[in-house]
């Protein structure tokens, strides 16, 4: 609740966004930053600038295609096709093959590292289950990222419109707007949202105290966030965003890359040639809590 007070007392929640927006526009106009550009991720800026920004993105050169190649490289090719289309024509989709998930939690940890998540914030836990009775027992592992619902129950409850679904289907949080009320945490039927309490793993610990990896900038949504200053994303709701900051550089979400069982797939479901399109057409596909009508864009293969 302190979060709300601070931001509203200053009246800063809105004005700072404006400052930010102005700065941003200035940079764009100057052309100095043109080579650094990636699509603008926030709602208000997005509509005006997306096309222009996208044109600036240098998609990475990929290895020569080869008949046998790692699915990671194949999916990077898929990504490039999608990124060449207008944003609203992409449908970012994740497929998790539960038969291949080995329950290693690499995705969980890789995501924490990539997004520099503090204690208490986790975007992609893996749920473990033991099924059966000795000796007829097996194990099931279920990674659970944000489902990026077509009908997200979390967005309508936000009192300040800080969280919304982008045209490419990714549900994002505008940290500058978020007031930390945590209504969205409650609204999500998948428990996909957690709250940043401003904690650190190493603060006041040991001989050396707070470590540098917890102090460097976070780069979510393509922006630099300086947590140690006590500002956003401290005091915000946080969730999986499919590593938008990587996707828009032509890179795969971190959980996809680090999956040692190659169980996680990512791509554009609007592209019939993409690997994810192939996979979600399989008969053994399912989604979590379909009965709620949330229409997740995360699919599971059983």
């Amino acid at each position, binding site marked *: 609740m*302190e979060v709300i007070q*601070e931001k509203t007392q200053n009246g800063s929640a809105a004005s*700072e966004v404006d400052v*930010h927006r102005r700065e941003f526009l200035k940079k764009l106009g100057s052309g100095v*930053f043109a080579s*650094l550009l990636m699509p603008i991720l926030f709602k208000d800026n997005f509509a005006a600038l997306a096309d222009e920004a996208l044109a600036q993105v240098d998609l990475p*050169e990929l*290895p*020569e295609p080869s008949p*046998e190649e790692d699915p*990671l*490289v194949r999916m*990077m090719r898929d990504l490039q096709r999608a990124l060449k289309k207008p944003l609203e024509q992409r449908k970012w989709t994740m497929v998790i093959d539960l038969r291949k998930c*080995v329950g*290693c939690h*690499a995705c*969980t*940890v*890789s995501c924490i*590292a990539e997004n520099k998540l503090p*204690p*208490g914030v*986790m975007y992609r*836990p893996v749920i*473990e289950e033991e099924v059966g*009775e*000795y*000796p007829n027992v097996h*194990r*099931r592992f279920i990674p659970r990222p944000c489902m990026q619902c077509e009908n997200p129950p979390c967005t309508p409850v936000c009192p300040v419109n800080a969280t919304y679904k982008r045209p490419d289907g990714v549900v994002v949080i505008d*940290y500058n707007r978020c007031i930390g009320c945590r209504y969205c945490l409650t609204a999500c039927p998948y428990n996909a949202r957690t709250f940043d*309490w*401003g904690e650190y*793993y*190493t*603060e*006041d610990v*040991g*001989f*050396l*105290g707070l*470590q*540098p*990896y917890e*102090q*460097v900038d976070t780069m979510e949504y*393509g*922006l*630099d*966030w*300086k947590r140690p200053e006590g500002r956003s994303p*401290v*005091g915000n709701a946080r969730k999986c965003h499919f590593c938008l900051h990587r996707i828009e*550089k032509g890179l795969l979400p971190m959980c996809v*890359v*680090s999956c*040692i*069982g*190659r*169980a996680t797939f990512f791509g554009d479901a609007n592209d019939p040639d993409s690997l994810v399109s192939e996979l979600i057409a399989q008969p053994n596909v399912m989604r979590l809590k379909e009965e709620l009508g949330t229409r997740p864009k995360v699919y599971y293969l059983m």
Partner: protein
Amino acid sequence: MKKEQKKIEFNPDRRKFLKSVAFLGGAAALSQTGCALVRTGLGPRGQYSEYHLNEPDHQIHSVCLQCHTGCPIRVKIQDGVAVKIDGNPYSPQTMVVHLPYNTPLKVGSKVDGGICPKGQAGIQSLYDPYRVVKVLKRAGKRGENKWQVISFDQAINEIVNGGKLFAHVPGEENRVVPGLKDLYKLRDPKLAKQMAGDAKAVAQGKMSVAAFKQKYARNLDVLIDPDHPDFGPINNQFIFVAGRIEHGRKEFAKRWMKGGFGSINWWEHTTICEQSHHIAFARVTDQYNKGKWSGGKDHMKPDLRHSKFIIFFGTGFAEANFGPPVMSALATDNLIHRGLKFAVVDPRLSKTAGKAWKWLPVKPGGDGALAYGMIRWMLENRAYDERYLRNANKAAAHQDNETTWTNATWLVKIEPDGPGALLRASEIGLGGKDQFVAVHNGRPAAVEPNGKTPVEGDLFYEGTIHGIRVKTAFKLLYDYAMSRSLAEWAEASGIPVQDIIEVAREFASHGKQSVAELYRGPVQHTNGYYNGQAIITLNLLVGNADWKGGLMVGGGHWHEDGSKPGQPFPVTKGLHPGKLTAFGHKLTREKSYYEQSTLFREKGYPAKRPWFPHTGNVYQEIIPSVADGYPYPVKVMFLHKGTPAFAAPGAHKAIETLVDVEKLPLFFACDIVIGETSMYADYLFPDLAIWERWGTPHQTPIAATRGSKVRQPAVESKVEKVTVFGEEMHVCMETIMLAIAEKLGLPGYGENGFGPGMPFKRMEDFYLKMVANIAAGDKPGDAVPDANAEELDIFRKARAHLSKAVFDEAKWRRAVVDASGTDWWKKVVYVLNRGGRYEDYQKYQESGDKVPHKFGKMFNLYVESVALTHHSYTGKRFSGLAVVEPPKAYDGSVVDDTDFPLRLITHKDILGGQSRTLPTDYWLSTIKSENTIWINPRTARELGLKKNDVVRLISATNPDGLWDLKNGQKIPMEGKIYLTEGIRPGTVTVSWHFGHWAYGANDVLVDGQHVEGDPRRRKGLCPNAAMRLDPALKNVCLQDLIGGSASFYDTRVRLVKVGHAEPVSIEV
């Protein structure tokens, strides 16, 4: 965390960014790293960011070591800080299909490979707030956790010169500590070489002790004991004990310890890992050369990409093993796309078992019995590859499109005490003494293993030839397999007959694409070697080696040691002027036959402690041997990255020796934290962490293509910098060795360390030469391309955050100019830019029905060298064929603590290493914060235990269930029980990683300042102190006398309820 109590703090002034303890360099550390942490100018939130992490100049490729798999990694650097670790896509260990080696960096940098959570969390081992960054000397008694910071130079001086070093400690006022200069006795390389040869002759009884003493009358003062020249020189009383040391550092440390200091006593930790598995493979694959069996391959793996059926014994692909990233990727790919089927033999439902076609919850140690059950079924049903097994030599194998063969048809002499030596052709007048005999259609034929004449043999021959009773190796196997009924094998293994049949049928039906894979589970038993051999035998019956989908040796590596033609720097053999020859029995009596010792001739059987002629690195025996002073006393111990007082079974007994300043007068250690064992050291030096240092670890054989991995510094360390040989460097193992070399004048260091004009003053002088050897390849014309201007530029930019103490381009370059003046720099950069050298996947694609890198030799179904070795207590011979035995003590007695109802085993979670990574890497411990004692609900019911009860582990040799730290602290072995259907009833298992009392878990006093331990690091339990001690030896655990493995799985325990706990969050 404690989220409810803590208020959200928005005032930046109140954040203690630089919270630290000044004496250990915390505050200085951040500036030292040179990381530009911007904290001023509170501009708009969410500045536009550039994402540089997939730019090549923000990446350094290196090699992980959070576990021994050593996955090639990509360290991504932001503002000088390592912020993200991913897999190196140039390597087959992190990709299903790795990138071609010549892929330009700007392309390769975009593709990230996959690595496991431990590897990801390397960031937190690197930036551990409990890292030691300055040199510590104990200010109290050993283990009291009282320290003072001293200068590096003072520490080196005191260790080298000795003296009354601990006069400030009550009780040690007058104790004179021996220094290394007192032990560096034998310094003359010529004399050392000569003495070494004669001491060996004395040991073998070819020269008398008297003659030796007469010959070296003027030099007897260099020996530990002139009456036992085979103990070697006094130099041997300085011992080096490493835990997790790998290639690169191994060669560096051996050069220093053996060739430099002249001590034979160098160890790593392998017997507490899975050594008997290596020894089983090595003995089964030894070749006969000039009258000796040698050169075996100690590690083979399934070609997971094309296997159709795998039976994993005590291991899997998703946890531990060697290792999860590439094994999981290949296994799941095969599982879904090519129909792999697999079974897992493990008393615990591992993650792999949890996805298996069949889980076979074997009785702990019953793996050999299960293998024999399968063997029996296969033999009875002729479900083995007869054609393969009938081939008696290479020529015969080649006729059948096989690259390997076995000695199944060779004749074994049957002696009164059992099968003995293989029959030689010379014994029946058929040929030479290096030829063997097979019988073809009833007629004996001489067999030359690699000869040009193909020889096939009858599998079932037995009879008497020239008065010698013989049987084929295969017939011996048959007889043994038939000696028990299937029901009896089922009973011994705990696996029902029907399951044995089904799994044997499945195994046999996929022929060359079936593999019996093993690692730690079956072999960390007193019968570990035999279990391993029995499992390997399954592979021989289907003849799967070298076939795609079968058993393979892996791609191997380009040698880094310079031993191959065309390699510029022979760092281990040639470039060592004045090198000493280390000699004598090792303290642990490994690689030495008791019968070839002066002690045997004096005392005969039994030997006081076991001798281990077939194995090495018998880690659990080191400190108990120090305690007994057997065969000779030790004066100084250097411990490096190891924790024998924690990680070994029965480790608590080691603590008694570590605190005894009489038995171990000087003990110094090198560690990244104050660890469970290094806390007992007299001097504790910091070490560089994996991501700050060098290495050339070898590739897992699961990779079918060749690869040479290179570990290199990715970030600058916070550890203090010192000056040695006039060069600035961070303190670490190498720096300690260089400083002692400088102080003592050890040969092979300094200005002309590698030869005239070739200095050895910095660690890069050594490691870069190894990289140059890799770049050069294994033969002339095999070199990598030169790095072009763009790549040289990327190389420099990627290292802009490193100080000259770490990266000095001129000095690095100087290190790779060879004796002929050739500059290897651009090739070295090409390799460093890719974190090593990797053969293209294409090599595998194009290799037809066999794997590209073949074993191509003979397997010993019957191992003659083991059959002719005597047990050093009983004097009886071991068996050439795997046998099934109960747990045994050193004196041969069966250990059967029947009044303890449960069998204790251990396991390794994917999130943890054995003694590292969990719970100190907090990202991992947020997922698994403590370990538990797994127990089947039926067993719990029988014992009256309920969910979340807290129990103490007690055993016959630890009836109190305590770790006695000998510093006034006693740590109970207590944990919550975890009720799970995934464990064999009657068995309990405890995972590693937890139960720390040091490593940041405890409070310490440094320079009078109190530093608190972290309660997160204190959780759970380590079961090692419950492990059964050998009743005949009393200060060491049970051991496998052939393979040398420490027994982790032969202990019986009782659970004593001590309380009840809040529910556990999640057990993984």
